[in-house]
């Protein structure tokens, strides 16, 4: 079901989807292929989730042809956005969807990690819940393996369920070569050049946990890619924000 293999010529007709993904705030979405949308199998179970399901689907696939008042039209419009989001969560973990999101990842469409020591590593959108209307979209950094809130408030209203909890992890499962090496370097606050006891003790404890994990993985024969640190230092121009 995941495979999409023909580059169809139907792209020229994707008015609604073009409009949707180019709307301000929708920068994280990719365009779902028409073939995927028209295969009923991919939409299994979504009907009860969306009002005016059929009309909404027609709108998304540019075959909407229904005379209705503005109010109904507005409801259908809203349903179409919701349906698109729900399908999007499924689509981006298909082979074709992963490819499209990967392109966006390479272009840093999802922004860069705000953590200084991640050195502007590109982020990926993620949901903290797969249930719609529960949490807004967040951003996952594969370098520090943590999640961050998007900078802009326009993304704070995007439902995290439209991306799902699994997407980034499936991406790295499918493209393991893209997993960034993990960096040991970490920040320890200082006071007049000295580390504080409490923070240094915590750091030592954490590093012990890391050593324990490495030992476990070594015994299990799992390769771990860690580096002590990256860039910084000499070139004062190492402005991570560039």
């Amino acid at each position, binding site marked *: 079901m995941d495979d999409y293999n023909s580059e169809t010529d139907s792209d020229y007709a994707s008015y609604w989807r073009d409009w949707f993904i180019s709307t301000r705030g929708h920068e994280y979405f990719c365009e779902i292929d028409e073939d995927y949308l028209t295969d009923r199998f991919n939409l299994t179970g979504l009907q009860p989730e969306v009002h005016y399901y059929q009309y909404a689907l027609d709108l998304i696939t540019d075959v909407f042809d229904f005379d209705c008042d503005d109010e109904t039209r507005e409801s259908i419009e809203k349903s179409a956005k919701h349906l698109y989001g729900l399908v999007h969560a499924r689509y981006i973990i298909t082979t074709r969807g992963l490819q499209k999101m990967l392109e966006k990842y390479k272009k840093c469409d999802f922004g860069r990690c705000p*953590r*200084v020591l991640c050195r502007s590593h590109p982020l990926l959108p993620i949901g903290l819940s797969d249930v719609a209307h529960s949490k807004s979209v967040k951003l996952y950094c594969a370098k520090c*393996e943590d999640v961050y809130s998007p900078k802009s408030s326009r993304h704070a209203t995007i439902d995290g369920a439209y991306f799902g909890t699994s997407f980034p992890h499936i991406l790295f499962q499918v493209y393991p070569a893209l997993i960034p090496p993990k960096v040991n370097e970490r920040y320890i606050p200082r006071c007049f050049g000295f580390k504080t006891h409490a923070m240094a003790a915590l750091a030592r404890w954490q590093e012990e946990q890391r050593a324990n994990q490495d030992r476990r993985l070594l015994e299990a024969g799992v390769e*771990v890619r860690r*580096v002590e640190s990256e860039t910084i230092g000499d070139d004062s121009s190492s402005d991570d924000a560039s």
Partner: protein
Amino acid sequence: MDEEESWVSSFCNVLGHEYFAEVAEDFIEDDFNLTGLGSTVPMYKEALEMILDVEPEDDSDSMGSASESLSGDPTYRRSRGHQRTASDYSVIESSAELLYGLIHQRFITSRQGIQVMYEKYLANHFGFCPRVNCNSARVLPCGFSDTPGQETVKLFCPSCCDIYVPPNSRFQSVDGAYFGTTFPTLFLMTFPELDISGNGRKDLIASSSLNPSGGRRGARDTILPPINGIPANNIAPGLGKGKKYEMRIYGFKVNERARSGPRMGWLRDKPENLEELDEFAQYGGDAADDSDSAISEIEDDGEEDEEEEVEEDDEEAEEGLAYGPGVGASAVRVKRERGAKREEVAGEVR
């Protein structure tokens, strides 16, 4: 003074300068606070005059209108009437900024200045941690280095003990050295009773009554016994069990043995029993005396950590010497394994 905004005020009102405190005039006028800056800042005297809104001595009133055309910018207005060219002004202006920044670094670690920063902290001027599990904990501006011209200003989150790039690009022209590496730590030591987790934020905004140590009055009861000199509930409240992101696929935790499995858990981890961190108690040594002295709560890492913390030691060492407590001579060390690895990733992702 009243009719016109002072240089300091107008500097602090510039877009992107929101993190700066207004350094008190008497602090700038005290020569002791400026020790060593004269040789660091070009056109020091002129720069200092500009900061203090002092009319240059060699001024002559007859030149009163010479620079009138520049008066659109409040910072030029201060020196009106003095015979200088626009390029002189821009040199002095940038010297004044540098000088102000370096004085600022000292001011915010002084008793007086840290109080000003405390007010700014409570007023949310520094923003919040972007990390989801920090629950909007307030952050503190800091430098990655104490030497100007190295790195732009960063934000330290006491809840996860990590540093972040400010969310807006306008802060990318602000030098991190103007805040320095010491400020966040000293701030947290000075106000040990602050609730630094994200949750208590609203309470703190409402409460402005401070106890003699600058903390929140009446908050004592909720403070756990200190570990290594810090109240236990202020040791990285955003880390540890329940505050760590766990990667899941279809609801199942990704096993660490998977090639794409978790490797960074340590960074956001914390012992469930914080007494594990109390190394004095653990090893039966003398417990740290609970004196307020910052010095008693810091440790001399001059020699022990050859492996970690490589890059900024050179500046830190100098700075440490300038401030007094003798820092070990662990200055310059070799950076390892950089560059090459990074290219590799870059090649893959971009």
